[in-house]
């Protein structure tokens, strides 16, 4: 009897083992063919969403004229749908994909005159990326921020709609939108990213992108400035190529005070000029620090070097070596379900860099300032009420913020300054 029991147990065991082996080879219809390490048994796919509804009250200089006059009030909504897949292979390799679908395709309806045939509620993709991670660190690839955007410290955006990186931009248009060099402003151009494990509080990362293009297409039907892979063109073009970013980050805590800091570098070539002098290469230094304690978050960031505002290369004008200096500081305080905070940013750059035919500069340096104060009340997990006020000021001698171009020498001082005020209040939801 004992022998029979042992025998049947062995047969059943062999069948189970054979079955498992067969599934690992792809016999399971729910599993892709391939070696066992590509098992999808541990895959998790999630659907997440975001919706916001705000009242906005906006004043912006130069919005009234022959083309029309704007009122101040508006209601706005924005929606995001996120599809996120994460998994872990049998050999410990982690992998995943994130796709963010949104409806803030404002470009389709930004004109204030004429009728729009397309709608600004049209869906587009924000970020879309995949990753593999393990003890070696993480390799991430796709339409995603560079490592400065991912690892930067001193970025205070945890109150209201996000401080100076918040939703007030959606109420401004044209020249009303400042370039305050927030750490995510460099864009989601398609890139490859490596980020290391953490050692004694330190981790580092580097990212590379060939150009500023996103998505799958070449960006153009015929060779021209619309092409992602544009390397040179008559007259040159202020657009980044061969973008490299490197970051070193530290995070730790001392006696209950959390400290985060980073130093980094962002550099890029510009599209060359086939008929003259090419724009300068962009070389920027990055630094930031933040402290957290007793509900407070205080931080600041500094970006400096050869470049123009908005993480752009600088035109190579004779005698023009003005550097870009970008300062940001913010503070927030969280108590229970309330968070209040304030941000201030100032960017000094070469600006428009227009020159007359004889080489004389038509425009001066640009100064852009932003101030935001606001708060969040968490009504319930996933439901928040926010209110905030934002003030924007842009100045540049010789530049006309009404037309978006340099003034002629005779009217140099016309519309050299732009002020904007945005008040937002409303609800946002996430699931």
């Amino acid at each position, binding site marked *: 009897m004992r022998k029979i029991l042992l025998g049947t147990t062995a047969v059943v065991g062999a069948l189970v083992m054979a079955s498992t082996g067969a599934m690992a080879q792809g016999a399971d219809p729910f599993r892709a063919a391939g070696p066992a390490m590509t098992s999808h048994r541990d895959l998790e796919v999630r659907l997440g969403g975001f919706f*916001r509804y705000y009242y906005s009250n906006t004043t912006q200089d130069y919005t009234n004229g022959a083309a029309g006059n704007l009122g101040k009030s508006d209601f706005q909504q924005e929606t995001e749908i996120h599809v996120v897949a994460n998994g872990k292979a049998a050999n410990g390799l982690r992998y995943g994909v994130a796709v963010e679908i949104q409806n803030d395709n404002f470009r389709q309806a930004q004109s204030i005159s004429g009728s729009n045939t397309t709608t600004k509620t049209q869906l587009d993709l924000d970020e879309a990326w995949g990753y593999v991670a393990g003890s070696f660190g993480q390799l991430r690839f796709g339409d995603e921020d560079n490592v400065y955007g991912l690892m930067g410290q001193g970025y205070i955006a945890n109150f209201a709609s996000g401080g100076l990186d918040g939703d007030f931009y959606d109420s401004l248009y044209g020249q009303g939108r400042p370039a305050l060099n927030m750490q995510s402003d460099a864009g989601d151009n398609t890139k490859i990213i490596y980020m290391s494990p953490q050692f004694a509080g330190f981790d580092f990362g580097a990212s590379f992108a060939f150009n500023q293009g996103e998505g799958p297409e070449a960006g153009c039907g015929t060779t021209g400035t619309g092409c992602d892979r544009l390397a040179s063109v008559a007259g040159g073009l202020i657009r980044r190529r061969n973008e490299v970013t490197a970051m070193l980050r530290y995070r730790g805590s001392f006696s209950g005070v959390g400290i985060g800091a980073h130093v980094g570098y962002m550099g890029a070539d510009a599209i060359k000029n086939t008929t003259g002098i090419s724009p300068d290469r962009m070389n920027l230094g990055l630094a930031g620090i933040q402290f957290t304690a007793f509900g407070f978050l205080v931080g600041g960031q500094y970006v400096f070097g050869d470049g123009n505002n908005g993480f752009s290369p600088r035109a190579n004008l004779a005698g023009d070596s003005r550097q870009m200096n970008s300062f940001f500081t913010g503070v927030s305080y969280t108590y229970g379900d309330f968070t209040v905070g304030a941000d201030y940013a100032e960017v000094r750059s070469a600006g428009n860099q227009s020159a007359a035919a004889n080489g004389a500069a038509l425009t001066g340096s640009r100064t852009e300032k932003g101030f935001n104060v606001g708060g969040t009340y968490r009504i319930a997990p996933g439901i928040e009420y926010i209110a905030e006020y934002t003030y924007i000021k842009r100045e540049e001698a010789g530049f006309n913020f009404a037309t978006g171009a340099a003034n002629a020498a005779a009217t140099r001082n016309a519309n050299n300054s732009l002020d904007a005020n945005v008040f937002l209040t409303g609800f946002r939801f996430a699931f």
Partner: protein
Amino acid sequence: MLKHRARAMQIARPVIASSLMLLALAACSKGRIVENDEYLNDSRRARVMGRLSGEQDGLLIMGTDRSGGGAGGRGAAGGEAGLGVNAYLWRATLDTLSFLPLSSADPFGGVIITDWYAPPATPNERFRATAYIMGRQLRSDGVRISVFRQELHGGTWQDAPVVQATSTDLENQVLTRARELRSQSAAR
């Protein structure tokens, strides 16, 4: 152009040098894996605290739940997958009582019971402790520890009184350790 290349090297050199040092360190020792939620997510959804879907970060539409308590769970209340009580208090209690041999630990009910332990310096007395973690919130009254003491008389262990401050001291140590763990987690 050469001037700008030199400028690039001037700015990037410290970052590259530090990164190469860390890379060398990576080759020699094993660092901590950095989780995805330790990188900035600049989507609007990521800026909302908590989820309408409760502990879950989004709706599971396929596969195995690997959320570990969801975005709202980690850090918000200190909860983790498989724990019915505050994770910081749970870990801090385990750390604090680690000098005693563990008899049983129930992470759902929040009960930790140790076995008897006789310190080598005083082999004629022995201790055991029972810890109760009261809930999911990190509160000063969230942990209760009872200490039991016995003395060896004539070859048999007999119950003996415990100094009242012993339990309070242990509770305070647990709270201090929990606060450290929370600070470390917040700083990450």
